[in-house]
């Protein structure tokens, strides 16, 4: 909240990412996340959203990927050369796609594992904080995480990330495979965490409508590039976004899947 407005919390400058030394996945991605904000990163599958998040959190290396060009700065410090553990210590934590809880650890052990970097002895208190946001988890604190339902696992994944007391949380598709009601609940909590716990959020989503409803700014990725950005109103009013992400035709009317069956419009920015 105190950071000067001209210096964003996170700044990604024109990065390129290469996998296995040959496959170019990101071709010059730049984005900024302001202190205290929620930024949404939208795009199709394979556009490079997850890769961007992993480049920030340092999780590329185990997948044999690396940042070959550009820089990533967090609070004015270069982090693209750092490894994942150091980045977490700086205050960036990623909630990975597909939940990825430690299945054989209990709920509470998962949370304790999330607090691995903490050395301040406040873990007990933070456990209560997480249970406050996710009362369901408290009830199932001694259950192996592998036996939790999908929604509970997603909550656990967010709660576990919260345990590291992050400044910036990278959320990768928190709505994936969840029922609409649960999705709404999760997004609710994301907003509350942003407001009450002052956690800045960078959110990757398929569910563009949902994401733009809570975000303060949005980027759209396609094919390893940022192709559009702007505040939610601007994006929501963009023809292409309406067409391809919101499923709305120009007049704001949703098109039936049966109708689009034999008719497909080409994307304008690619032609």
């Amino acid at each position, binding site marked *: 909240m105190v950071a000067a407005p001209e210096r964003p919390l996170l700044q990604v400058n024109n990065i390129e990412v290469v996998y296995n030394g040959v496959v170019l996945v990101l071709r010059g991605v730049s984005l900024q996340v302001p202190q205290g904000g929620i930024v949404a990163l939208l*795009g*199709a*599958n*394979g556009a490079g959203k997850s890769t961007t998040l992993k480049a920030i959190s340092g999780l590329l290396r185990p997948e044999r990927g690396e940042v070959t060009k550009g820089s990533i700065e967090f609070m004015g410090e270069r982090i693209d050369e750092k490894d994942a553990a150091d980045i977490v210590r700086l205050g960036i934590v990623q909630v990975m796609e*597909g939940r990825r809880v430690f299945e054989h650890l209990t709920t509470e052990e998962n949370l304790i594992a999330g607090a691995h970097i903490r050395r301040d002895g406040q873990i007990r208190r933070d456990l209560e904080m997480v249970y406050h946001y996710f009362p369901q988890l408290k009830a199932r604190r001694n259950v192996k995480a592998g036996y939790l*339902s*999908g*929604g509970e696992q997603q909550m656990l994944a967010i709660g576990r990330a919260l345990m590291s007391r992050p400044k910036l949380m990278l959320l990768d*598709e928190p709505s*994936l*495979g*969840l*029922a*609409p*009601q*649960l999705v*709404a609940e999760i997004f609710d909590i994301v907003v509350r965490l942003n407001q009450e716990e002052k956690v800045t959020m960078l959110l990757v989503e*398929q569910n563009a409508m949902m994401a733009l409803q809570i975000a303060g700014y949005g980027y759209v990725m396609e094919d390893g590039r940022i192709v559009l950005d702007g505040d939610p109103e601007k994006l929501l009013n963009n023809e292409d976004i309406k*067409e*391809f*992400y*919101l*499923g709305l035709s120009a007049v704001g009317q*949703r098109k*039936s*899947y*049966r109708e*689009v*069956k*034999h008719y*497909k419009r080409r*994307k304008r920015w690619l032609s």
Partner: protein
Amino acid sequence: MDEPPLLDVQDVHVSFGGVHALRGVSFQALKGEILAIIGPNGAGKTTLINAICGHYHPQRGRILFKGKDITRLRPHRIAALGIARTFQNLALFRGMSVLDNIMLGRHVKMRSGVFACALYWGPAQMEEVRHREVVERIIDFLEIEHIRKVPAGALAYGLQKRVELGRALALEPELLLLDEPMAGMNLDEKEDMARFILDVQEEMGIGIILIEHDMGVVMDISDRVIVLDLGEKICEGKPEEVANDPRAIKAYLGEAVAQKGR
């Protein structure tokens, strides 16, 4: 005298480790219709599919396919009878090419034994070629010619889903079970997938059971909808009926979706 329904699920109970995933679910699926199953997470949708294709065996109840009891059959037998499925979290054979993945779908249709395979001579070779033709038709249909020889694991998510559909189609099934075929897709890809599903229904006359969270898709393309909650069927009917059913709204849809669907 009457032709039996394509699939007849009668009072199926499944539980594991004390958790009752399904408690007495009954329904019928008809030839050539798209039947959607919706419900909140943990409602037992995937368990139901797993029970139909033999991965789980119900503790109680029966499942009939074209009048034949398949409750206790092992999955590969059920597949051979003509039930194919796709998976919620992709289950392609990552090491194999797209072509081989779909060829594998032809497995139950092929007869070559060990020696024929080892020699790869005469009938065995002819058989491979014959089935290759079928597979090529499916590849054409799904518009994935360009990735024929790419290892499945290296494909983008949406394409993998499409290949998985192709693999299921290669079985020449009469009943196709699709477990969240659109999860994690953008609208563009969803439209493609919806198109393929409708084509499958129309051109091949295959009965489809569809699990999907995207209400837009469900409401648009399904002929009938079943709502599951906590392992029980709470309502069934045409999409618009279900969308207005208070039980369904309460359990799953929520007010907003119900309105949107209208």
